């Protein structure tokens, strides 16, 4: 779907966030970017989304750069409009493009994330997990080709996080949606990723890549082995630093 060539990002302050990033994302991948805070994972995600520009390198798209609405983005916070209902928040990407069936599609999407009964609720009346579900529904409602997620579950409790991870895998599988997911949790990376890319501390570079098998039982030996493998890689990275 896309290939990142020699991407680097230096901020005006002189801080180098990313350096020499080469990575490909294939259609249907669930690519997890794993790394410590401040290693430039979110910057890379923003550059893929077109929200930030690289100082070096480029991003090539196999089928051309996606049109507005063809990239779904989920932020670390739910980032909902507090003055709108859950339904109006979800339908936003469709309404911005003047889609006539915006409300009907948003209602269906809300039902798919288990919030069909909360269409008329304001964000302030929803729990943190429910707000994040609304945010995911908003990102998926326009059937994007690429879903970008920036540590969306970092602020949630363990129970809600596990449930949302399962729901996310179901939703992306059902749509065949390519996903790039940023996290600093190696458990989350091991559970979700079909490919796990480990990044070094700032300036972020790609340290290693691991294959994954999304959605395995959390007590499964394969999943636990992958967690062990990532832990080892992280330790080696720390020792090398």
């Amino acid at each position, binding site marked *: 779907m896309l290939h990142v060539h020699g991407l680097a990002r230096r901020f005006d302050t002189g801080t180098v966030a990313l350096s020499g990033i080469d990575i490909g994302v294939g259609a249907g991948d669930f690519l997890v970017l794993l790394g410590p805070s401040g290693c430039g994972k979110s910057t890379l995600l923003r550059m893929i989304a077109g929200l930030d520009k690289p100082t070096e390198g480029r991003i090539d798209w196999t089928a051309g750069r996606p049109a507005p609405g063809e990239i779904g983005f989920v932020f670390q916070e739910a980032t909902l409009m507090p003055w709108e209902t859950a339904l109006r928040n979800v339908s936003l990407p469709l309404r*911005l493009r003047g889609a006539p069936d915006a409300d009907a599609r948003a209602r269906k999407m809300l039902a798919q994330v288990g919030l069909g009964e909360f269409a008329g609720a304001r964000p302030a009346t929803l729990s943190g997990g429910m707000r994040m579900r609304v945010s995911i529904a908003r990102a998926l409602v326009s059937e994007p080709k690429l879903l970008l997620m920036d540590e969306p579950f970092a602020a949630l409790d363990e129970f809600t996080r596990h449930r949302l991870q399962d729901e996310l895998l179901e939703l992306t599988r059902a749509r065949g949606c390519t996903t790039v997911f940023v996290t600093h949790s190696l458990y989350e990376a091991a559970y979700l990723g079909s490919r796990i890319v480990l990044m070094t501390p700032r300036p972020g570079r790609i340290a290693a890549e691991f294959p994954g098998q999304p959605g395995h039982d959390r007590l499964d030996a394969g999943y636990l082995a992958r967690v062990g493998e990532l832990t080892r890689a992280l330790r080696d990275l720390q020792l090398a630093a």
Partner: protein
Amino acid sequence: MRRLSAGWWAPLISFMVALGLWQAAVMLTLVPPYIVPEPLAIIQAFAADWPGLLRALVATLTVTFAALLAAVILGVALACGMAASRWARAAIEPWAVILQVTPVVAIAPLIIVWIGDPFTAMVVCATVVAFFPVFSNTVSGLAATPADLLDLFRLNGASPLQEILWLRLPAALPYFLAGLRVSGGLALVGAVVAEFVTGAGGVASGLAFRILEAGYRLQVPRMFAALALLSAAGLAINAVLGLVSRRLLASRT
């Protein structure tokens, strides 16, 4: 319920206590009524000329609300202009500061000379006073739009108009309403100052003119009655705008 009771009873009791102390102080010190009249004399002065005072209040409030409306339209429009373009921001900001720091009494004579019509001149003077809080708060609110939501709008190809109408203005509403509450009070202050400066009398004269007139005639209780009406109007404007603000923002918390 407890909060509502405290919110109503505490100011009412403090007001009654203050009135009682005032009445007692005047009676005990025997201050002549043309210096400080007792509250009962003020009530009597109001009862003696309440239709005239209420007409004057309506005249002052007409200028106040016309000025508040003009300040809102002008303030929001200029704030939106500043949010839309850095050039517009750089061009508008100094003018807004000049308007803020220039005392209205200093420019009121010029406004009167330029405009001529007393009512319009008073509205313009009061608008100058009321403009800044609603303008600067709206500017702050528009600038404080969450960056992630702005990114979301851009990712989905929102037009600049959609960004302003669907995102920046609703996001700025709490700031705007806080500014509106301050501007509401200032519009009243501006209207009174404008009446003083223009010296507009006649049938449609406002409370400021009544205060001046009563002062010339040494009708001090009548002056206080007009002042009390002004204070009550200020409190009412503040309370109504507070209520509007709470209603509009209730769903967000």
